[in-house]
């Protein structure tokens, strides 16, 4: 009982018709249908501008369809096929976007869900993808936005380390806390967390009874952040008011 081949209404369509049809589907948002049409176009007319544009649009459609893995493979295939394509920088930018896509969604934004508390691995890959874009095409029109997103990512990654350090201080695991804090100072020196990291190290060493290390760190804090608030009081676990229950 051979299943009959589904009737293929695109039989006999010209490449322009196929491309136009696929493009409408893409704009009207049903990405699955668009991807199928683009693939038939690529199979039937593998030459010329349309095929290349189809490959780019497939990558974009997969991204919009939240199919991260498929989109990345489509991008990589495009890069291998057309290494000298004029707007290859868009493809690198798209790769970055796929990883970066912070689906914090509507509620997330309102409730101040910030990226530093989410999965760091995806953010690291996004950072690498954007960096590849800014290195290969420094003057691409996507470069500025990529740079801005890179800074946001670095800040998020730094923030992530800081969050973990704060948790371990709250938990009373001071060795873990001081290692994380030192990680912030070492790897994320240009972020806004260095001051708090140093203050945390001072307190953690004190709790560990390593007074020499605590004093030395305090001197480094005083040297780099003379007006730091932590110099007066010591670093303390931030107590949340009860009504901020969503935090």
């Amino acid at each position, binding site marked *: 009982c051979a299943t009959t081949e589904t009737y293929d209404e695109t039989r006999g369509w010209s490449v322009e018709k196929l491309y136009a049809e696929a493009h409408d589907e893409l704009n009207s948002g049903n990405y699955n249908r668009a991807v199928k049409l683009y693939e038939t176009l690529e199979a039937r007319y593998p030459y010329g501008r349309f095929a290349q544009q189809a490959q780019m649009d497939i990558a974009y459609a997969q991204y919009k369809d939240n199919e991260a893995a498929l989109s990345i493979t489509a991008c990589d295939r495009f890069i291998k096929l057309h290494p000298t394509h004029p707007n290859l920088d868009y493809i690198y930018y798209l790769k970055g976007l796929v990883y970066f896509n912070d689906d914090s969604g509507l509620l997330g934004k309102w409730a101040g869900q910030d990226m530093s508390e989410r999965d760091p691995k995806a953010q690291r890959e996004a950072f690498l993808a954007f960096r590849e874009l800014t290195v290969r095409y420094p003057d691409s029109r996507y470069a500025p936005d990529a740079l801005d997103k890179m800074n946001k990512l670095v800040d998020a990654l730094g923030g992530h380390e800081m969050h973990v350090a704060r948790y371990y201080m709250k*938990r*009373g*695991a*001071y*060795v*873990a806390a*001081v*290692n994380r804090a*030192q990680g912030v*100072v*070492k790897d994320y020196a240009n972020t806004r967390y260095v001051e708090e990291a140093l203050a945390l190290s001072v307190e953690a*060493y004190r709790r*560990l*009874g*390593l007074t*020499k*290390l605590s004093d*030395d*760190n305090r001197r*480094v804090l005083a040297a780099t952040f003379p007006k730091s608030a932590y110099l007066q009081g010591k670093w303390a676990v931030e107590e949340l008011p009860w009504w901020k229950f969503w935090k």
Partner: protein
Amino acid sequence: CTSMNPMTWVAPHHMEIQQGNAITADNVARLKPGMTRAQVRFVLGSPMVADMFHADRWDYKYQLYQNGKEVKNLLFTVWFKGDALERFEGDALPSDKPTLTDASAPVVANKAP
């Protein structure tokens, strides 16, 4: 009036907090000044606390809190001059039963009952 504060009616269970290197006396006994950093790392293990501003000293700190109460709080520090072990001081956990210190020694047949 703490009695009314419901928080204190029942003492909550605190997770066991264990931090840092649990080095034992027999490890420390094998330390000799002049050892390279790699040798010290082999004998005592990698230090959990190596402050970035004090490259010349490793702190083998050990803390153990069980149900909120401090059970162990030891510190063993080693100082280096360049790559050679200069001096070391501090205290370590009692060494576990010396059935076999050196793995390559022949099997000691301790007769089972």
